[in-house]
């Protein structure tokens, strides 16, 4: 991104994507808890009520199942809802509507209909919100055919991918990263979109491949810089969308470096990193691997409240660096 590009926050980038699409398409609207005058719990929809009015920026009662279901019904009838779950953890209440309804309707009804909706989830730890407000649940949705799953790591990606998600004719789970909301990054002034299903090589390298998404991308990039000073060339691949997944870019990188480390904040067991590892272990890249595929993930523990524990529960730069050193041995 050019040095002259304007810098805006991840939250603003999401706001811009929603607002631009709402200007462009009268069928797009936003609904959720406190998305109106409050502007969303994290300020993501600030100002949107003023611009679009209460008919298109809809504050709902605290009823996550009905929020999701209302979005599904509206999508079936020609609208393009964006529904927000204030914290991703609350999606546990809305799983039927997402998994049994939205994801399956197109197939189950023989292609009669599509369900163009976006469910925005604020995910992840790092804010001291503890076990019920800090989860990273993207792997669940990746395991549900019919859904697409996006986890952006930068303001630029967040905006471009959300535009595509809104325009997509399928239900898209858009997992935002709470701790990135206030982070800034370069975002083009002009309209753009980023296609779903295309990984982005955030840093090119030749010795080892780091696959990371969401807030783990900036963390991995920092670690990669450190290694660069030691003469180790680390490639950082950000899949950006987990479903559909750009397996080609991932396996190409694995083939090139022969060493793969997967990093995500979600807890390790049955996390999406397992899928990435399994894909590589089952691919043509397998024979080019010089070391076992490693994962640095969140620990298998509910996110604790106390700050030191909370930090220890998710990947740290130290754990990532240590894994790289093991891989290089």
């Amino acid at each position, binding site marked *: 991104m050019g040095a002259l590009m304007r810098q805006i926050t991840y939250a603003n980038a999401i706001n811009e994507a929603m607002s631009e699409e709402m200007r462009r398409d009268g069928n797009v609207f936003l609904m959720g808890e406190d998305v109106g005058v409050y502007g969303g719990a994290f300020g993501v929809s600030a100002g949107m009520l003023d611009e679009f009015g209460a008919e298109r920026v809809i504050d709902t009662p605290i009823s996550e199942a009905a929020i999701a279901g209302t979005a599904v019904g509206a999508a079936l009838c020609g609208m393009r809802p964006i529904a927000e779950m204030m914290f991703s953890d609350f999606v546990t209440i809305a799983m*039927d509507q997402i998994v049994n309804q939205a994801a399956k309707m197109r*197939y189950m009804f023989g292609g009669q209909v599509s369900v163009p909706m976006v469910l925005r989830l604020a995910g992840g730890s790092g804010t001291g919100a503890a076990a019920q407000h800090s989860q990273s649940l993207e792997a669940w949705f990746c395991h549900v055919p019919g859904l697409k799953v996006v986890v952006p790591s930068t303001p630029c990606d967040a905006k471009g991918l959300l535009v595509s998600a809104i325009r997509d004719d399928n239900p898209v789970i858009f997992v935002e990263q709470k701790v990135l909301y206030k982070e800034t990054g370069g975002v083009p002034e002009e309209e753009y979109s980023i296609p779903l299903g295309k990984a982005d090589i955030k840093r090119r390298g030749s010795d080892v491949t780091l696959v990371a998404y969401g807030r783990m991308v900036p963390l991995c990039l920092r670690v990669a810089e450190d290694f660069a000073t030691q003469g180790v060339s680390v490639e950082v691949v950000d899949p950006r969308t987990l479903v559909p997944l750009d397996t080609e870019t991932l396996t190409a990188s694995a083939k090139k470096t022969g060493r793969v480390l997967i990093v995500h904040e979600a807890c390790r067991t049955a996390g999406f990193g397992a899928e990435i590892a399994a894909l590589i272990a089952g691919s043509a890249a397998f024979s080019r691997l010089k070391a076992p595929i490693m994962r640095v993930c969140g620990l298998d523990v509910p996110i604790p409240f106390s700050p030191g524990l909370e930090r220890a529960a998710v990947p740290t730069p130290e754990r990532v660096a240590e894994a790289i050193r093991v891989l290089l041995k």
Partner: protein
Amino acid sequence: MSFDNDILKSMYVKMLLMRKFEEKVAQLFSEGMIHGTMHLYVGEEAVAAGVCTALGDHDVITSTHRGHGHSIAKGAGLTGLMAEMLGREAGCCKGRGGSMHFADFAGGNLGGNGIVGGSQSIAVGAALAAKMKKTGGIAVCFFGDGAANEGSFHEAANMASVLKLPVLFVCENNLYGMSMPLSRSMNISDIAVRASAYGFPGRTVDGNDATAVYRAAEDARDYVKQNGPMLLVCNTYRISGHSKSDTNVYRTQREIDAWQAKDPVLRMAAFMLKNGFSQAALDEADETAARDIESAVAAALQSPYPDARTVLDGVYA
């Protein structure tokens, strides 16, 4: 009160088709032609017939696991439904859905649902779309007495109320949710009371009387268009077992017999005879319906099973 003859006829034909459709699928099932299970609507036909006949072109419905009747009443093609039961490519859902997932988006049926309560908020969303798009249509949500205990009912009813959306909640109270009698699944006897928790009206009607259901639905539709949601409880009874695996251990044959005597199809026929229809006209309707079902079966059986190589097609748009 006088009744338009075309409406009576239309309701009667729908009820005949529902009954004969299900008699046929039960037979096909027992012959091993139909896979899986099915939830028959026998005894409840007056509800779907009465409600759907009162609807207009822009109105949509959401249906349930017990949705054959809703589909027929809302006008879906019989061949598509029969082929769907049989798992054929010509099915309304290309054989992918089966009995619980009949849908006809062109005709305003947003689909059956295998999840009890699963369609309640979907109807709310459909009503929201109607409001935003100013179609003038309403959304009708069919659901059972058992489904009224799902949290989804509460959330959907409240959401529709505060957003003032044109949703008509139609509770098909057949006195049981599977083996659970109403008397043990809730501590109220009139489900319509629940509407007051959301600040909208609830009304109860004899669900075995198609004309009463029709009038109530007509009134309710007018109300809903102007004012937002309403609950219409139709009291009826499921004559068939819950599903194909039901052995009816939870109720008495006597109870079933007593309701059989109130068969809504016979009742409708009697009403029509009293209101100027001839026996010959009814007989003809009966024969036509039987023929329609037979030709739907014949056409459906012509359709091939889906090619297994297409199993992955159509997951995504």
